[in-house]
């Protein structure tokens, strides 16, 4: 198999996670193997999976997965049961604030 060398930048937390789970644990020989394995898993999981009707493309695929997601969520009792939409928005605002703190504050600063 011919190989292509690429240089990529990845967030530090992703690097640490990848290193911990795949390299330091001994599951992969090195970081290059870990990244290759991750990419293959990703492509198989989201693009080459068997349980999708054949020939589904574009907007029809978009609606198919939307309805599938809605059905699965509905079967689990919905998202945020018992919460008003304003309460949900407040929960999401707090989630966003936390994500910013964890992933972006050190990079962009906070005001």
């Amino acid at each position, binding site marked *: 198999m011919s190989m292509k060398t690429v240089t990529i930048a990845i967030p530090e937390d992703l690097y640490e996670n990848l290193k911990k789970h795949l390299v330091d644990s001994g599951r992969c020989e090195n970081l290059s193997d870990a990244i290759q394995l991750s990419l293959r898993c990703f492509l198989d999981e989201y693009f080459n999976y068997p349980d999708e009707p054949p020939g589904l493309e574009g907007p029809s695929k978009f609606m198919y997965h939307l309805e599938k*997601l809605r059905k699965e969520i509905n079967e689990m009792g919905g998202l945020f049961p018992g919460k*008003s939409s304003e309460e949900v928005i407040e929960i999401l605002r707090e989630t966003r604030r936390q994500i910013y703190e964890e992933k972006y504050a050190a990079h962009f600063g906070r005001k």
Partner: protein
Amino acid sequence: MKKSMRLILDANEYIFGIGKAIEKPYSMALFPSIRTLMEEVSEFRLFIPEIIRDEVQRNLAPQRISEFYRFMFSDERIIYSSTYDVPKVLINKYHELGLKSEDALIAAFAEWQGVHFIVSDNRHFYEELKVEQFITCNAEEFLRLLTSGNIWQIIEQLEAKR
């Protein structure tokens, strides 16, 4: 004229839209409209900034995340993009307009990517953020503009200012 539209849906629109929130019928109706836009608008793009993807993902059950990703990757006009490379100068601009850091990042991303609309049902976001570069509105207003056809004039005006 070749139509184009570059759009961001805030995390609350995904949550209400995929969660079938009865209180938010317009958020639910956004997605069939996006399907129509995909079919009819040659240069339609739906951007998913990383911070919004993260926000939706953290509020979904772990078992649903794979399906959310399949939904997200279902069409090539849906563009997932890292938010680490957003120019700091743009983030500072939106800080100065009074946005919190996390909202400033999304607004800066929108300007950076030439987005026309941010649709959000978070009134703190859509009522407070009025700029020339893009329009912030809720799902109801977005659908009203789309149905009336006025949305295309607005996009033309935004493009003319760039």
